[in-house]
């Protein structure tokens, strides 16, 4: 079963990855290990999970303005999520991806979706991010 969620491509791009979903915002500074892709905010529900190469779905970023620097470092070191899906129009994730495009020619897709659609996402789904911001979510074949 596949269904399509319409989203807004804050930073356009294509990716396909297994989802990692939480309904709590995350500060990447102090929350994301740029060398391993592990989520290290010990108060966050995804603490201990590896978000590298996953489609990471969070309502928004949180807290420190250094979140962008950490995400840029993670893109450079190959430990960034494959895509980030948010509810909010998130400046921090978008900026990091835009600068990664400027610096290294590799931005990652950042997509904002409606809260009711976000609520349907689950960890372990296969998510394909399309250039126009649409998400194709495969619910049947949990990876």
């Amino acid at each position, binding site marked *: 079963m596949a269904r399509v969620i319409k989203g807004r491509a*804050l*930073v356009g791009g294509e990716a396909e990855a297994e989802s990692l979903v939480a309904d709590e*915002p995350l*500060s990447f*500074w*102090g*929350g994301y290990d*740029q060398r391993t892709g592990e989520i*290290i*905010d*010990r*108060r966050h529900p995804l603490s201990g999970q590896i978000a590298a190469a996953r489609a990471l779905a969070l309502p*928004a*970023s*949180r*807290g*420190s*303005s*250094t*979140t*962008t*620097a*950490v995400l*840029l*470092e993670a*893109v*450079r*070191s190959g430990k960034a999520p494959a895509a980030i899906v948010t509810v*909010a*129009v998130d*400046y*921090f994730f*978008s*900026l*990091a991806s*835009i*600068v990664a495009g*400027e*610096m*290294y020619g590799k931005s990652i897709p950042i997509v904002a979706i409606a809260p009711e659609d976000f609520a349907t996402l689950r960890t372990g789904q296969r998510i394909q991010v399309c250039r126009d911001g649409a998400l194709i979510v495969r619910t049947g074949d949990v990876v």
Partner: protein
Amino acid sequence: MSLMLSADDHAQLDGGRGPAAQMAMRIIARMAEVCGADSLMDITGAHIDSALFQGDATLEFAERLAGLGARVIVPTTLNVSGVDEHGWREWATPPEWAAKALRQMAAYQSMGAVPTWTCAPYQTEWRPKFGQQIAWGESNAICFANSVIGARTERYPDLMDICAAITGRVPATGLHLTENRAGQVQMRLVDVPRRAQEVDEFYPVLGHLIGKIAQGRVSVIEGVIVAPSEDQLKALCAAAAASGAAALIHIVGVTPEALTAESAFQKRAPQQTVVITMDSLRAARGELTTAVGDKLDMIVLGSPHFSLAEFKKLAPMLEGKRRHPDVQFLVTTSRLMADLADQAGRLAPLKQFGGKVTVDTCILTTPMLRPEIKTLMTNSAKYAYYSPGLLNAQVVFGSLEDCVRSAVAGRVVKDESLWRE
């Protein structure tokens, strides 16, 4: 809504002000599209968090801009850096880290930014004015500038703050615009007595709770019946920015855009009303401590950077005392405040106590602590919030008095009388 650029914006985008301004404007214009702004606007000041060395990418970004001849065109201050320029050798900071962090510091200074190296730029001569449009990075400083001063900044992320300083332009959106500064969440202190509101420890706890409730929204706090000091408001803003991305907190009767609740809400109805009681504050305070037991390796104060007033408060508490040999005692601050405190005779008691001072940076932004430091105690909610993740350390939150008492005793000692049910 599509983005309309001015003639000067186009000139920058076309390379008329050189390749660095061109790259910076390209990033600003793309960000304007992301946030749906229809135009850019001028800023007259900037505070740059991007100078913080985070790894090769942030250094490469800095040196790319510097190499392209970037210059800031508005008065621009620099946030904490990745190393204490002159003091790092006293700590565990690896030389290769220091070398790169120093290169990044040099790159931003070459652009004409003022080397303030502090996360409390609002306590320097560069403090912005009420209503001033600025582009600031550093979450605690953003919250303080908006809330306590009434200057206007969005939450600028690292890498964008410097682009704003180079171009002098930001998307006309968010907290730059009056209508977006209206309160959204109402929080009412109920049965929170004056004696609680008078102590310093109350403010980081309240801030931690506000941030958790607000989650990025503009909050309006009612029921503060005292006149909090600037450092108390600093602690509140830092805590709320850490726990919940708070960028603007109106405190009715205290902050400049909240002379009344009605003006703070701009006559609109709140989206949500939350009651804050001593019970909810007690729970919030409990969340700031992760350590179990009374073992302790280090006391650390000064996030945001310690002010002269805080040094003046601390120094008399230390007179004639000495820290326990097993517990280190550190204050993080700016060069400016360290110099002022020294001139005021407030550093000598700290040194006689066995304490140290680190400037330019802090324990979260430079790898200065040895891994044997496993349990920290602090009066800063920001240190308490981030230390477990960034330093893999356990943390104890307490008042300044608790921190000093514990340093002497060599184990955690806390006065719980205010917080008992």
